[in-house]
């Protein structure tokens, strides 16, 4: 028996080099939590100015301390000399995690059948292992709003952090019901309806909305009076928007539709409104400001909605709304290229919004709109350690993001794009059949 053991042991010993190399081959870097001390950094807090040569302590998923002369002998120290710490950026409207490949219908899970489906949960459809998630988060975008699409009441959007193995682990504390306000605009150049048909469709849709809304109102009233209600999940859910329990994210873009939506909202005082899209917001910015609703707009990197528009209206839109007094957050409305959020913000900054306000529009402003400002959106003690370290301004194209922390987890600065780069930068064999 002992002999056999010895044989096995020596066999294993011989195998050791292979095992070791196998380990390197299959090495996986996982997100990991712990106690981290980021030292000698310039900390851009967003809410409390910028601190030079400061340290930041991360423990239990939180920012435990910020300041100079901070020390923690048991913490893993990350020297950030010459680097900057920013709060993680929010993309306030995406399909990230809800679709893997746009043209492959089997992987598209953001749009359910039916026009009144407010009970469809974006959080359910989030794939924590979507390849695009690690591709996104290494850019410093740590938090995204997953927005279902289609119909009038598409479903319930959910705010997620881009780390975790289940949707609940990713959930960042905000949900809102999505409403597509009837559009007088064309969906795309494929949309060849006549002007009259578009108008008719919009009127029909508004009539439809009013009927549905009335039903939801009735549902909430009966519910409040503790009356008997049949199982009606759509209304049960929409009633929460009627009472303001869940915010209503109203997607509306054309100037006239924005005005119509504001009119529609006049007698709905309990509703907790967030306007989204708002591509032509600059045309009616004063009216939006007057109504006092916050706006999530974008992408800036898109074509003007009208042929007669000045070339830069999509770039200047957020700045113009901000100037009129509207609270503005920025989104990409993208899926696989949510990593372009900082560049959208950069364009907004260059074209009138200014760097400081553009930074707020992807950090503290969306945190406030989503009601998670106690936990996210700025570098403050006690807030979630959801932040990143960069070698410069994160909007600037050439800037490198060095480290990303999401709720205290240090996430690997890797993804499929980076792995392909590592594998193929110097292919071996190159042109010949065998390497020289």
């Amino acid at each position: 028996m002992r002999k056999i053991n010895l044989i096995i042991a020596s066999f294993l010993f011989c195998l050791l080099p292979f095992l070791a190399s196998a380990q390197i081959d299959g090495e996986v870097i996982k997100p990991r939590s712990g106690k981290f001390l980021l030292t000698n950094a310039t900390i851009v807090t967003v809410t409390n100015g910028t601190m030079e040569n400061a340290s930041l302590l991360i423990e239990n998923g939180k920012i435990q301390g910020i300041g100079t002369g901070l020390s923690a002998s048991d913490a893993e120290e990350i020297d950030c000399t010459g680097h900057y710490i920013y709060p993680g950026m929010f993309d306030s409207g995406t399909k990230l995690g809800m679709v893997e490949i746009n043209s492959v219908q089997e992987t598209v899970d953001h749009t359910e059948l039916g026009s009144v489906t407010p009970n469809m949960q974006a959080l359910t459809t989030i794939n924590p292992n979507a390849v695009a998630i690690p591709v996104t988060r290494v850019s410093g975008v740590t938090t995204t709003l997953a927005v279902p699409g289609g119909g009038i009441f598409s479903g319930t959007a959910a705010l997620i952090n881009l780390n975790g193995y289940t949707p609940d682990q990713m959930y960042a504390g905000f949900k809102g019901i999505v409403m597509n306000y009837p559009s007088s605009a064309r969906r795309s150049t494929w949309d060849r309806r006549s002007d009259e048909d578009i108008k008719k469709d919009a009127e029909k849709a508004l009539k439809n909305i009013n009927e549905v809304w009335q039903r939801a109102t009735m549902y909430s009233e009966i519910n409040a009076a503790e009356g008997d209600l049949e199982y009606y999940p759509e209304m049960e859910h929409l009633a929460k928007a009627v009472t303001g329990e869940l915010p209503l994210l109203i997607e509306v873009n054309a100037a006239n539709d924005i005005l119509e939506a504001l009119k529609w909202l006049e007698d709905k005082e309990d509703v907790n409104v967030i306007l989204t899209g708002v591509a032509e917001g600059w045309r009616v910015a004063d009216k939006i400001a007057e109504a006092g609703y916050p706006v999530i707009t974008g992408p800036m990197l898109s074509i003007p909605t009208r042929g007669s528009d000045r070339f830069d209206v999509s770039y200047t839109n957020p700045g113009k709304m901000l100037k009129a007094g509207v609270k503005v957050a920025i989104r990409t409305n993208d899926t696989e290229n949510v990593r372009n959020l900082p560049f959208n913000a950069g364009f907004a900054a260059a074209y009138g919004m200014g760097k400081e306000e553009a930074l707020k529009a992807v950090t503290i402003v969306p945190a406030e709109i989503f009601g998670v400002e106690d936990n996210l959106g700025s570098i403050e003690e006690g807030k979630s350690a959801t932040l990143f370290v960069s070698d410069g301004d994160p909007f600037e194209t050439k800037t490198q993001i060095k480290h990303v922390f999401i709720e205290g987890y240090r996430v690997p600065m890797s993804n499929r794009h980076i792995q392909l780069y590592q594998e193929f930068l110097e292919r071996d064999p190159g042109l010949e059949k065998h390497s020289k």
Partner: protein
Amino acid sequence: MKKIIYAIAALMCWNTVNAQTDKGSVLIKNATVLTVTNGTLEDTDILVENGVIRRIGQGLSAGNNVTTVDASGKYVMPGIIDAHSHIALDVVNEATSPITSEVWMGDVVDPYDVGIYRALAGGTTISHAMHGSANAIGGQNVTLKHRFGTHDPEDLFMKEAPRTIKFALGENPTRVHGRGNNIQPRTRMGVEAVIRNGFNEALQYKKRWADYEQASKQRNSKAIAPKYDSRLQTLVDILDGDIIIHCHSYRADEIYMLIQVCKEFGIKNIVFSHVNEGFKVAPELAEYTMGASVFADWWAYKFEVYYSTAFNAAILNQNGVLTSINSDSGELIRHLYHEAAKTQRYGGLTDDEALALITINPAKQLGIGDMVGSIEEGKQGDLVIFDNHPLSVYAIPQMTFVDGVKYFDINEDKDDQRLKVNPTELVEPIFLKEHDHKCMHDLDFLFTEAEHLFNFHNH
């Protein structure tokens, strides 16, 4: 008889002289000049005379009738060149056959497209107006200079540019013809067969003509000329090296396939476009082709671009592949300088390397590298002035010149820059989704589910 011929010839010469497009003169003073091919020159002047860069230096002066622009604190770079575009085109796809080499995009140029002006406002002075990607061998393209304001499509043509043609591999031709029309190609094997068959037929066609010409030299020859076929003649011109292929492609296998086919037929003038998996066959692209024209970061909009990397341009560049960044989009063409800058985030390219991706490199791929694409004496006066370094996300183009003529000035922009308003359009349409110019335009009739198939990015 001879006299008449001379007279006609003279008349034609006179016509071409008259048909010349505007050429301007301008003196740009005290700029930081990003020459691309000769580094960065601080505090330097550029003198353009009659559309041509005459002098680059310090303390230059010009005649009284030449406009002087003070560019102190500003940056000047060569006009940006987009090697893959569909702006200024009425239609994009002649999707009636897997080979349509007989059609030419020059016949469908729309000088009224406000997209041309928007491209100018983003510093883009030249675009390669391409046929779509429905066919394995598509139509011939046309290289445009953005002389916005003309009503004559021909004024936009860069007449000195060589001929180019569109090829397409992978999902688009197999979807349109195989799945849509139930004819070859339905697979990537079929795409290869269509191209090979086309070239072999072209060789036979060429031989028929050669035989006929040989025979007709005989005295009292009764040889009858073969039937002229512009489709096959175009393929012959490709085989003769007179046309540059620009091939829509994504996957490494299909790129490798066409490289092999081209090697076999002795074709060297080929540029691969999109080429998302080009990084996997970078050594082959470097050795056998005129390079790759890629997106900065587009991926995952369809299956054949799922295994992409934003480091594609960096890997290609590092491997010695002539690389450019294109738009294939009426949106991206407005900020190609920003797309080029992304190679600094994804792969750390130098400023000169990044700028070359949208200037001299695409110029070479279009066969116009000796005329445009860098700031050099003797080259055409296509220039852009930026307030910041053009690779900065905060850069805003201030003025754009084509042939020394100013076509964009941010301070003279009129908001509504349309040249023509549709009189039947009582209410101006508002488009929410990007109303874009794409490879797969004009194909909705092929599919009942067109909205689904084509509404997303279908490049």
